[in-house]
């Protein structure tokens, strides 16, 4: 028969032992894979973007995203901040065909669109968006089957053969990057053209941009030009309050951009 003293002694030892084991395993798991020499990062210079949408076109054709469907792995947003402090934004067909006029069509109730007179525009600019390949991706955490995951070089991929199409990841992404692929009916997302960057090429959008508004680099290489900009210039990330540690950095990011 166990007495009270032994019960407390062994009980306490068991609790402490379990706790230590769990934390130590956690540390081992957390440090796993962090020693590799490549961690992809992205730099978007919003001051250079002209809203031509060539990046979106190239992305859709490169990654076989049905061209005439409104879903896209990447898109370009137009922001018009008015002198009264309000702003309107749009991204028709993900800006696949660029912004070729000053008509904002973001309201189904106004089929003719909205034209903001030039004297009411305080500032107006374009912001390219794509997957942030977060260091702590919430979309991966919620996947119930292990169909989406982070590679050792930091890119979040979707296993099309394993995805069950539950849509949790689409809800979990704070950046609205994920969508259902209209043909495969599984979760789809930007993967920074993993097939290109792993061959030493640039992503389709980076290559297609004539203005250098998009750049991809390796943040573990201190001599990488993109890393140098991120380390030495004023850059920002989207929605840092979510704690996702996004790895796409933005230059010239305005506070109206979400």
């Amino acid at each position, binding site marked *: 028969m166990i007495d009270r003293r032994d019960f407390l002694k062994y009980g306490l030892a068991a609790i402490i032992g379990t706790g230590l084991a769990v934390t130590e395993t956690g540390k081992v798991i957390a440090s796993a894979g962090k020693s590799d020499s490549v961690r992809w990062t992205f730099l978007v210079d919003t001051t250079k973007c002209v*809203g031509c949408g060539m990046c979106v076109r190239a992305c859709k054709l490169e990654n076989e995203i049905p061209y005439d469907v409104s879903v896209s792995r990447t898109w370009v947003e137009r922001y018009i901040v008015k002198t009264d402090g309000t702003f309107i934004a749009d991204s028709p067909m993900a800006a696949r065909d660029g912004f070729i006029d000053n008509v904002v069509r973001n309201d189904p109730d106004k089929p003719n669109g909205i034209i903001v007179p030039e004297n009411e525009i305080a500032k107006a600019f374009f912001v390219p968006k794509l997957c942030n390949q977060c260091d702590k*991706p919430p979309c991966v955490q919620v996947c119930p089957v292990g169909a989406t995951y982070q590679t050792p070089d930091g890119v979040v991929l979707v296993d099309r053969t394993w995805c069950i199409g539950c849509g949790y990841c689409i809800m979990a992404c704070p950046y609205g990057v994920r969508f259902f692929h209209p043909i495969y009916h599984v979760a789809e997302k930007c993967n920074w053209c993993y097939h290109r960057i792993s061959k030493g090429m640039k992503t389709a959008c980076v290559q297609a941009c004539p203005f250098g508004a998009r750049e991809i680099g390796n943040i573990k290489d201190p001599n990488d030009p993109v890393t140098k900009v991120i380390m030495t210039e004023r850059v920002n990330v989207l929605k840092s309050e979510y704690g996702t540690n996004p790895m796409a950095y933005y230059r010239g990011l305005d506070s109206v951009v979400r």
Partner: protein
Amino acid sequence: MKNHAYRPLYVVIAVIVAILIARAIMVPKDFGIQKQGYMYGWHRLGNEQDWKDFKVKHRGREYCKDCHPDNYELNANSPHAIIQCEDCHGPAIDHPDNPPKLEINKARELCLRCHAKLPYKQSGRAWITGINNDEHNPGMECVTCHNPHSPVLN
């Protein structure tokens, strides 16, 4: 062991065994916790290679250089040298085998992507030569006057 009270137990054991057998058959051998740990790395390892093997379609302007040296050279010395051939002509893929012909798009909308004048001073559009689509030779193809490979008029 003739007690009928054990029968549900046999059913449960049979279901568990069936599930374990099904899992052993259906889950790929390379599925598991990979380098990124349980929270972010729980996946089928072979899928990384599946994505790496995805077909590259945009080959870059150097792919076009050897067969189209005239247009390549003309373009390289113009303000349009910053634009990739495939931006306007579409992805080369394995051209000329597949596809045998690439797109030649003479629509005004293609040029307007950059050259529509928009009053957005804080954007990159501000420093590009822009036109008003309704005033600058409306309805005419831009290529009537401008060579897209070297667009500046003498």
